[in-house]
């Protein structure tokens, strides 16, 4: 697995051992050190990189055992294994981290730290301004094909706490780079699902399986997410939009070696979108079954 170069969360950390003859500099220039700390912090804010650590598991383990820390840990567990840890509301075998890669920290894979400060925001899907919580409810409705957890449910509060913890230090409303999924510019050529099928067979099927059913561990948890069929997202999910799916594929897939061209990504997305999945819950049974 190729890990994205992690930005240091605390670039001013001084636990590096200095040679004996240089230590007086570190001790003597506390003011300079503080200045450097502030400058680094300001630089981080200005660049709006956010805390893009590769996998927050280590920092999660270091969280104190207070109630906030426990809620964040619960949120992390739900985020990385939703079918098991939010069983009540999850309707398929997908987890949050299957699309929000690296447990919601990777840039261009809809990271949580970039989304947190951008809500409440207008949502075209619901045609109104939705809060962050309501946005997460939509993930459960569509991408996880389950039931929306109530706004006061423990599961939702844990996910919110986790997103909040990931977003510490990111300016609210700064629209950080790497937010959401990137979009693909028009290529001038229509997406061709048949070419997409060939690309899928050669580059995707090794992990996701020719039938798009993913891969499961011995205990039944999905190691590689199913892409279609009855264990995957329904037709109301954001990734059922071809442009969004193509953008996600272009930026992130194949995992660790995202080398597809724009056209290839569009073709694969077209192929994946042709497959069977649960109907859109925003439509009645008749329309949902008949319409794509």
């Amino acid at each position, binding site marked *: 697995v190729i890990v994205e170069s992690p930005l240091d969360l605390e670039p001013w950390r001084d636990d590096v051992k200095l040679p004996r003859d240089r230590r007086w500099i570190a001790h003597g220039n506390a003011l300079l050190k503080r200045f450097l700390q502030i400058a680094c912090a300001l630089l981080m804010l200005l660049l709006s990189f956010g805390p893009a650590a590769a996998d927050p598991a280590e920092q999660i383990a270091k969280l104190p055992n207070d109630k906030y820390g426990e809620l964040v840990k619960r949120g992390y567990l739900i985020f990385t294994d939703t079918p098991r840890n939010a069983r*009540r509301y999850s*309707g398929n075998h997908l987890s949050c981290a299957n699309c929000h890669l690296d447990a919601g920290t990777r840039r261009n894979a809809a990271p949580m730290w970039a989304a947190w400060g951008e809500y409440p925001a207008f949502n075209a899907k619901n045609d109104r301004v939705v809060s962050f919580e309501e946005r997460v409810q939509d993930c459960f409705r569509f991408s996880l094909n389950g039931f*929306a957890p109530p706004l*006061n449910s423990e599961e939702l*509060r844990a996910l919110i706490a986790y997103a909040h913890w990931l977003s510490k230090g990111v300016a609210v409303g700064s629209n950080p780079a790497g937010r959401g999924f990137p979009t693909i510019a028009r290529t001038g050529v229509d997406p061709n699902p048949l070419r997409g099928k060939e690309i899928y067979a050669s580059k995707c099927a090794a992990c996701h399986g020719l039938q798009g059913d993913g891969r499961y561990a011995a205990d039944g948890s999905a190691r590689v997410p199913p892409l279609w069929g009855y264990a995957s997202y329904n037709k109301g999910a954001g990734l059922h939009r071809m442009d969004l799916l193509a953008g996600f594929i272009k930026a992130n897939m194949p995992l660790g070696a995202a080398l597809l061209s724009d056209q290839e990504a569009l073709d694969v997305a077209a192929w994946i979108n042709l497959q069977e999945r649960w109907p859109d819950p*925003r*439509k009645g049974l008749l329309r949902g079954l008949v319409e794509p």
Partner: protein
Amino acid sequence: MAGAFARWWRASDAGSDWHAAWSSAVIMLPQAIVLATLAGLPPEAGIYASVFSVAVAALVGKCPTVLSGPNTAIAVMVSAALTPLAAPMSGGYVRLALTLALLAGLIQLAMAALRLGRLLHLLPPFVVQGVITGVGMILITSQASALLGVIDVPGEAAWVSVWRLPEVLAQANGCALAVAVSTLAAGLLAPRLPGLRRVPTLVVALLAGCLCCAVLDALWGAAWVDLERIGFMTLQLLPLSQPHLDWQELYLLKQLLLSAAGIAFVGVLQTLIIIQGTRAEGEPAADSPDREIAAQGLGNIVNAFTSAFPGSGSFNRSASHAAAGARTYRAAVGSAVILFALGFAAAPLIARIPLAALAGTLVLIGVDMLRSVVRRHVRGRPLRAAWSLAIVAGVTVGSGLQNALIVGLLLGSFMSLRHRTHPKPAAPVVPAAPAAPEAVAEPPAGASASALSRIV
């Protein structure tokens, strides 16, 4: 194991017990989920509470007609006790509910050891009936926002939801209202339709609500209908749990103990009323109710260690249990086993039950409680006879069950004092009702006929 169970089962009066076990399990399953929601706990807790402790209480108590499990008044008390301390449905809340069950169980065991059963027989009935009236009102008011598909503010007094009603009406979800109305309509009409009379009313009502919701889903889509559902349950065969309080939480102990004492008291009272109420006419009184109290205590302790929440004998369920033909305690054990199997089998369907339909069934239970009180203790009597009942009910709604019990006991002793100072009683405050066997508490043989028991 299964063979041993079958042999043990065959030894019982299998035919009628089997029938009672089945029908009680079918009635209990929706109640378990509804009451768990009422108590602020996940539906799994309701199912566990109506399986393990029910079996243990039946095996220990051996009273053929008492069917314990989650109970309306107890569920209201659990939610009133714990919502100020933790968020409903959260891990901390569940843990506190376990602790509460353990404390209530221990208190009930102590009550059995002190032989308080006979003493409780002397309790004037207006206290119990007033509490039942109050709980019925709480059930109706507390579900007002859930009926309309709006999230309630947790931890408020019961009457606050009436105050919030205009605001809630403005945010109401029409689909939730449709589901609730169909649930209520089915529940109120089902007993009058000859074809549905034999099916439990709550089951009919819940099914009607689910059917309405399924039709709305099919026509407009689940996301548009936007109703909250129960969600998928994760049932375990042996859901062991451990009640505990952290050292930092010890300050909660006093409050938990007070609530546990109230829960233990109400649980014992209900169980005693059931024993009196379902005893056949002319049959001698059970030698001692203390055995049944101890069984309830043990049941609550089992609840604490099986991821459940406090319960007690349930009057309406026990009545239908006896009516369905329960002859021995084996019927209760059988219903617990069948209910557990049903819970596993029906989990995917239960997941889709809308919360509005659950709220509708709770309102139906509340209406039924009010009706039974009016039928037995208010109708056909001068209105002034009901003033003590009304006071206890008002205190229940206004400031909780514990305070209502205290006020009721004070009122009862005040009336007994007045009775003693007026040697020629003018009119009994609450005259004895020959039509209501459960209201007639026989003065126990050994006890001297005290003033309190004459009020009864």
